[in-house]
């Protein structure tokens, strides 16, 4: 949804009905057989995989994701969602962490092998508001979507990374290369300051004279919520990319629903895959 409203509806179900491309502009969803162009180790459990995708690559907006079918994993029925980490006219890349059977199967693939993907999925981040200072908050693989978005911006800003330890901090060098200020906090102090990234951010914010900032965040839910709270308290906008278990990725199955505030009913469901995954902090009805 991310900002645009047509008319209020049950579950936002029919937003895309009259014109299925209303939120996508001219970019329709595609299913594409891709070839692995590169598959390299990034750090710790993180890997980068580049896929040939001349159909999907040029259409991707930052914050969108793809649904990837793990080949050779013959007992899996669901695709795995991954944010787009890089996209160009010929390819898309993902930055992924090996956490379970699907990502382990993907990890065994070699360049030249084929992967079936659908995308681009979701609405991605909204356009950055001119005049506001860009702030980015990332945890773990959340850095992937953020840096793709940062690449599209003229304006430089500050990015805050948080994690348990050094290996959870990704893409810091890329942000530096783009000219951004990078602030890092790890719980064990193995890189950056020791402690929570919220503390680093609070100190930074306290030192500023204004709150003319706009925040885009992607990371674990606890982190997103903490920054969402700050956005409300300190009166700035925070666009949060939410992570939900997904089955279809296209809005059909109603697996990935998330509670959105609703003036009449208290809350109503929105589909993280189709209506999100990015929501403004005020839209989200956090669980008690």
């Amino acid at each position: 949804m991310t900002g645009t409203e047509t008319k209020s509806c049950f579950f936002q179900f029919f937003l895309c009905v009259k014109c299925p491309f209303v939120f996508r502009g001219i970019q329709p969803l595609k299913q594409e057989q891709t070839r692995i162009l590169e598959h390299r180790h990034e750090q710790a459990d993180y890997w980068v995989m580049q896929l040939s995708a001349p159909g999907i690559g040029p259409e991707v907006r930052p914050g969108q994701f793809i649904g990837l079918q793990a080949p050779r994993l013959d007992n899996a029925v669901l695709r795995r969602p991954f944010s787009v980490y890089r996209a160009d006219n010929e390819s898309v890349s993902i930055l992924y962490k090996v956490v379970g059977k699907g990502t382990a199967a993907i990890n065994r693939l070699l360049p030249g092998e084929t992967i079936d993907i659908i995308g681009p999925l979701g609405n991605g981040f909204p356009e950055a508001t001119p005049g506001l200072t860009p702030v980015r908050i990332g945890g773990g693989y959340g850095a992937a979507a953020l840096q793709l978005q940062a690449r599209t911006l003229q304006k430089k800003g500050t990015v805050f990374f948080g994690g348990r330890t050094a290996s959870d901090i990704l893409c810091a060098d890329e942000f530096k290369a783009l000219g951004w200020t990078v602030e890092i906090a790890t719980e064990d102090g193995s890189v950056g300051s020791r402690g929570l990234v919220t503390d680093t951010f609070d100190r930074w914010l306290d030192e500023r004279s204004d709150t003319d900032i706009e925040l885009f965040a992607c990371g674990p839910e606890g982190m997103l919520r903490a920054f969402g709270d700050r956005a409300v308290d300190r009166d700035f906008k925070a666009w949060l990319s939410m992570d939900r278990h997904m089955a279809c990725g296209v809005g059909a199955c109603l697996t990935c629903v998330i509670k959105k505030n609703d003036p009449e009913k208290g809350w109503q469901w929105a589909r993280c895959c189709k209506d999100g995954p990015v929501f403004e902090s005020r839209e989200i009805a956090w669980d008690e």
Partner: protein
Amino acid sequence: MSDIKPDMSVNIGGLQMKNPVTVASGTFGYGPEYAELVDLNRLGAITVKGICAEPHTGNQTPRTFETRCGMLNAIGLPGPGAKGFIESYGEFLAQYDLPVIVNVWGKRVEEYGRVVEMLSDEPIVSAFEVNVSCPNVKEGGSLYGTDTKSFASVIETVRAKTAKPLIPKLAPNVSDITLFAKTAEDCGADAISIMNSYPAMAINIETRKPELANRSGGLSGPAIKPIAIKLVWEAARAVSIPVIGMGGISCAEDAIEFIIAGASAVAVGTANFTDPSTVIRVIDGIEAYLIRHDIPSIGDLCGTVL
């Protein structure tokens, strides 16, 4: 091998389909969701997500969980209600050359009657699939599907409300599916569909919590196909109304197996998530099989198991 195109059309109790392939309710949304990936005009019919008279919120999350060769779901039948459905999707669906099977449910017998009554005159609605077998709503659902008396009362009630094709969707968790198939036929159903997802459960051994917020859910996907084939085989021999077969279809061969077992039409469910092109591959694959085996019409294959 013959040069003439085989006749793929089927008539499911009055519902005319250009080919025997639809999608399973709840796995394909209401139409727009997959419209960019799948040419809806190719489908024999679309079966939309379960609708009841009023809007419904469904279950809490997590709502699905992947298992080996299958998945659990306990979506809990959220939906916009009968009015909301027509308002939101009526115009969209009318653009296509596509019969619409509306999957309906209710918490009480009267609610089944109400939703069918509300939708029966809508030109966009081609047929009703009556879900008496959802494992994921406490009310009604599962009881109506496993007790022949309650089942009969639901079917009689909806039959009185519509002249459109009526297709009860049977519950799989019964000892004798033929009792329900015959009851459906006796109560005036035009066809039956088999099977809904199977009541099942998964528990996370680290948290000791069920993987679904609803605790249990329904198992679907390739894992259950052999169960579905058996149920379709038994039911199809017991009644003379047509059977729509589903449960784990992920390729044309699976669909053909259902048809040989006795299904007049088939539905692709979970496989839409695995690969949205499945339903088109199934249609093309069935046609190729008929050509390869010189079978003039899909009806000639139905129920031909030896």
